[in-house]
């Protein structure tokens, strides 16, 4: 770690004069500037917020996975001291539906009311809301709402839901299929006809709870005088929430302001607009009281959207030398009870990315999204790409074993070669630039792969079940040509640089890299730069923080805004210095003449002049404010190689990860420390899916995982130290050359660890076909292999 760079940040914040940074801030492992606030407990989270007159909401939720609502009786509730009011579905007459997909030949929309009307479709679906002076009273009151249910048969398993005659989640649809598509590229039949081997497997990506440290929450307050609804909410997409709330509540977009406070994570689960957002906002208007609701952990695990939930059938046509000629893939996605836009994004992204890093010319991919009586599916760290990487990387592993090849060799044979970029995939994407072979070589060297294999041989001779797993990954980042991101830069008269960025980072640490980029561009110390976000009043428009897109898009928008500022300041400085604006240099807090460095003016003097019309060049408008909505020309595709070493206890089935190596190529790096943090957290979450995490329901749709006592999340015990390094192939698709790293580790770690466990079990010749790799499951694989020796 570069301590000198770090001390600049800290020193500046303490008012110590920093030393100039000639070589710039980008590329340095600066500490996160926001942490000083957070570690001192000075952050402001939704739970901290209070507004005068605020009341608390508690939701009455369906205890049934599928039931007809026969009657709702809330007459007892208002007798309870401290209760302000109660709302049921019939009180929401003028309120619109929650978002679903637009109907077309492939997609079937499912109307969804903010509170269930006649039928509840998953356990935890909101049926009524109670408002009271405090949360305890609200919860007491919620118990007094009597809902009569007539239970209906529930469908829980996604493949059961696909069968004819299955109970229907939505009666108006004739089946539970809410999306179906087929995409065929190349001559798939021919590929299979020419194949020496056909490898078939069924893979399951279990449902996962995103489980952010902070649950969801909302505080809504309505100003009758101005007709403005002000909403503080845990959202990754403040403008999106504004526009959706305005549309559902029949308010003008100008009449809704959304403020997202500090947030403790989201992992994709705080993109969608939820029923509670609508109901709490409506209640604030209806009762003319500020209303607050913060989700309990049980509500979070049961009613916040789940990720993954995908069954995959794969057939690979393989030549004897290991070359893959074609793929047939069927993806069955467990949408849950409603066809939300987020639920549909996951399988469609999988269907775009399922060929991974490989040059596969012929492929057929069929996607079914299927309704079940479970909470809707949505984005979760990686959203569709972990499922894609799992599909292809598990397939590669099984092919390699079938052919008796090293997992490294099977990949080398099938890689898209360096010279083939830009490369168009069967999924319809055009990869930017990659050198998979070089990255793989680096990983082999970094992990001392040959030595690991030797150690494995030794362990096996001792009777130990040691395994080495490899996965190489790529993903789609930098969404996208249709989804700009915004940033604005203001330089105040005192020369302070204020950056407003779109979306709403929620723990990633955007303040620091954005400040690094802008400080370098303006040649000022990073301590001069502050970053703001999460208020729809800050920027005219913005899009969400998600999909590892912020460095590529937000970073570029901030950079381009800073460039515009620099251009304008050059014009002003040229008048102050009486020199040509094109030969001015911004550095060390000064604007210099390149030809005569003694001609210089302080950055803040230029800033001050910008607000004084008489100091400006003819025709130049005062103030320093520049805004950019950056639209990338195309997506970017980071990639990498991960290698895990595991040991399986053959008596108990327990899996221990002994070593973990990762070599990623995420393009240019703005802040290596933040990047490494993202990689570590990502790998942990990927390991969580492989080893311990699962949302479980019983056959009737009752959730069996309702707290962290049942739903396990990774801890320091889950993995050993992660060894990480990188290769660097800057992308040509944005001015920074950055790709994206937020989801990288999560995507890679799951197949890497599963491949390692399958390798450990190679003497039993089994295919690992489900996750998590619970001890009882692993032992059953061993016991059922027919090769167990006692």
């Amino acid at each position: 770690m570069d301590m000198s760079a770090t001390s600049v940040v800290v020193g500046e914040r303490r008012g110590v004069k920093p030393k100039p940074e000639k070589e710039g801030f980008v590329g340095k492992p600066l500490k996160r500037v926001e942490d000083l606030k957070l570690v001192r407990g000075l952050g402001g989270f939704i739970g901290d917020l209070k507004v005068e007159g605020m009341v608390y909401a508690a939701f009455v939720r369906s205890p049934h996975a599928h039931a007809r609502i026969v009657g709702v009786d809330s007459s007892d509730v208002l007798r309870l001291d401290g209760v302000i009011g109660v709302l049921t579905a019939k009180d929401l007459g003028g309120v619109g539906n929650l978002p679903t997909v637009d109907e077309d030949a492939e997609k079937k929309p499912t109307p969804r009311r903010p509170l269930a009307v006649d039928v509840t479709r998953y356990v935890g679906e909101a049926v009524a809301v109670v408002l009271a002076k405090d949360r305890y009273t609200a919860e007491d009151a919620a118990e007094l709402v009597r809902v009569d249910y007539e239970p209906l048969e529930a469908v829980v398993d996604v493949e059961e839901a696909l069968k004819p005659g299955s109970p229907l989640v939505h009666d108006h649809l004739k089946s539970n299929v809410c999306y179906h598509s087929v995409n065929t590229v190349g001559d798939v039949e021919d590929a299979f006809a020419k194949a020496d081997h056909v490898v078939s497997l069924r893979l399951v990506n279990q449902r996962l709870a995103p489980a952010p440290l902070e649950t969801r929450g909302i505080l809504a307050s309505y100003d009758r005088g101005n007709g403005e609804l002000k909403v503080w909410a845990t959202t990754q997409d403040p403008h999106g929430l504004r526009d959706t709330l305005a549309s559902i509540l029949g308010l003008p977009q100008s009449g809704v302001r959304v403020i997202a406070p500090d947030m403790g994570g989201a992992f994709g689960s705080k993109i969608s607009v939820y029923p509670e957002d609508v109901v709490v906002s409506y209640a604030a208007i209806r009762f003319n009281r500020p209303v607050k609701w913060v989700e309990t952990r049980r509500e979070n695990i049961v009613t916040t959207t789940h990720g993954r939930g995908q069954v995959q059938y794969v057939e690979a046509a393989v030549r004897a030398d290991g070359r893959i000629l074609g793929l047939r893939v069927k993806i069955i996605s467990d949408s849950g009870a409603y066809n939300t836009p987020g639920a549909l994004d996951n399988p469609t992204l999988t269907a775009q990315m399922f060929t991974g890093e490989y040059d596969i010319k012929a492929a057929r991919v069929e996607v079914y999204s299927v309704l079940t009586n479970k909470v809707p599916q949505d984005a979760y760290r990686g959203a569709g790409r972990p499922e894609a990487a799992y599909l292809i990387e598990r397939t590669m592993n099984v092919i390699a074993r079938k052919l008796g090849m090293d997992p490294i060799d099977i990949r080398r044979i099938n890689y898209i070669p360096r010279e083939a970029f830009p490369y168009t995939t069967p999924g319809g994407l055009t990869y930017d630039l990659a050198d998979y072979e070089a990255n793989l070589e680096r990983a082999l060297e970094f992990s001392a792969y040959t030595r690991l294999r030797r150690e494995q041989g030794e362990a096996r001779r001792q009777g130990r079940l040691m395994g080495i797993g490899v996965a190489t990954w790529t993903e789609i980042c930098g969404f996208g040509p249709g989804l700009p991101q915004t940033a604005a830069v203001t330089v105040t008269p005192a020369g302070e640089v204020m950056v407003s960025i779109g979306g709403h980072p929620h723990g990633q640490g955007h303040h620091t890299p954005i400040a690094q980029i802008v400080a370098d561009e303006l040649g000022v110390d990073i301590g001069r730069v502050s970053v703001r976000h999460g208020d729809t009043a800050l920027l005219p428009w913005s899009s969400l923080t998600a999909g590892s897109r912020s460095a590529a898009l937000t970073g570029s928008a901030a950079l381009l805004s800073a460039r515009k500022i620099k251009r304008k300041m050059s014009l002003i400085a040229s008048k102050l210095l009486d020199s040509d604006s094109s030969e001015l240099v911004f550095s060390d807090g000064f604007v210099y003449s390149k030809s005569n460095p003694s001609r210089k003016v302080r950055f803040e003097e230029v800033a001050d002049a910008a607000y004084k019309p008489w100091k400006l060049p003819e025709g130049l408008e005062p103030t320093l404010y520049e805004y950019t909505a950056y639209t990338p020309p195309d997506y970017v595709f980071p990639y990498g190689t991960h290698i895990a070493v595991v040991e399986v206890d053959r008596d108990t089935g327990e899996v221990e990860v002994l070593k973990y190596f990762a070599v990623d190529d995420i393009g240019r790096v703005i802040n290596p420390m933040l990047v490494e943090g993202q990689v570590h957290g990502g790998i942990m979450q990927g390991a969580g899916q492989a080893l311990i995490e699962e949302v479980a329901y019983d056959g009737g749709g009752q959730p069996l995982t309702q707290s962290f006592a049942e739903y396990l999340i990774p801890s320091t015990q889950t993995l050993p130290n992660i060894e990480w390094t990188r290769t660097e192939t800057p992308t040509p698709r944005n001015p920074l050359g950055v790709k994206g790293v937020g989801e990288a580790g999560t995507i890679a770690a799951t197949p890497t660890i599963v491949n390692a466990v399958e390798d450990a079990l190679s003497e039993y010749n089994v295919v690992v076909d489900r996750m998590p790799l619970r001890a009882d499951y692993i032992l059953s694989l061993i016991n059922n292999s027919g090769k167990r020796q006692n």
Partner: protein
Amino acid sequence: METFILVFKVLGFGDLCLYPASFEYYAPASLDEAIDLLNKHREEARVLAGGHSLIPMMKLRVLRPAYVIDLNRVKGLKYIEEKGGEIRIGALTTYYDVITSDIVKRRVPILAECASVVADPQVRNWGTIGGSLSHCDPSGDMGSSILALRAKMVAKGSSGERVIESDDWFVGSFQSALKTGEILREIVIPTPKPGSGGAYLKLERKAGDYAIAAVGVQVTLDGSGSCTYAGIGLTAVGPTNLRAKKAEQALVGRKVDDRVIEEAARAATEDCRPTDDPLRGSAEYKRAMVGVLTKRALNKALADAKRSR
């Protein structure tokens, strides 16, 4: 936790609430005062020790005591002492106290090993041995060590004290031998003889989780290497913590070699009564694990016993 799944199945799902229903709170200064309150409010009252079982269940509203009687201001319930061939542990002694006690480490290391795998540091700092035993969770770790050590529980009620053998303590799931109005005051463990060893091995999904299965073993060997004492307790594989009597019988009076260990381990699989658990595995898996853990724990305990002669 298996507990809650069971409770949800019996009581239904509720509103995903994590706010307890209202209750009145007492903080008596003496055990007699606490017992008076308990006798006054009977079934409507619950005793609070460390609170790490009671409070979660109250937050889920699966327990709704009208009165909570907090023992934490009662003096003289937190101690570990050895006297007259017995180790006496006060009911409010925390897991942390047990783990760090020299007496425990020297005389009954099984107890320290067991306490160190209970939940997480926060729970171990607050949770008490008396609270755990009174709660009688079949997945509780302490109960199996208590069975392996054949400890006695001293209960106090309005009419005085009585001593309850560990074999009689575990009446049912979440049901101890305490009668209404009684509070567990002390745990008494006979000091193991020289040549003793113990081990508590827990198979868990992740550190801090409730056991898939766990086994506590305490053995004593005489000078000739024959087993003179064997105590084996099983966790999470029955309606209560169980004593593996057949396994104990397979050991006592015999010179313990690998064959005998195998025999005892097999007997333990017959002693347990596990049920299918959607998150932790089938009854069959748990039964097999009782065998594996018993064997491993015996090997560990026997090695310690040989060393301590």
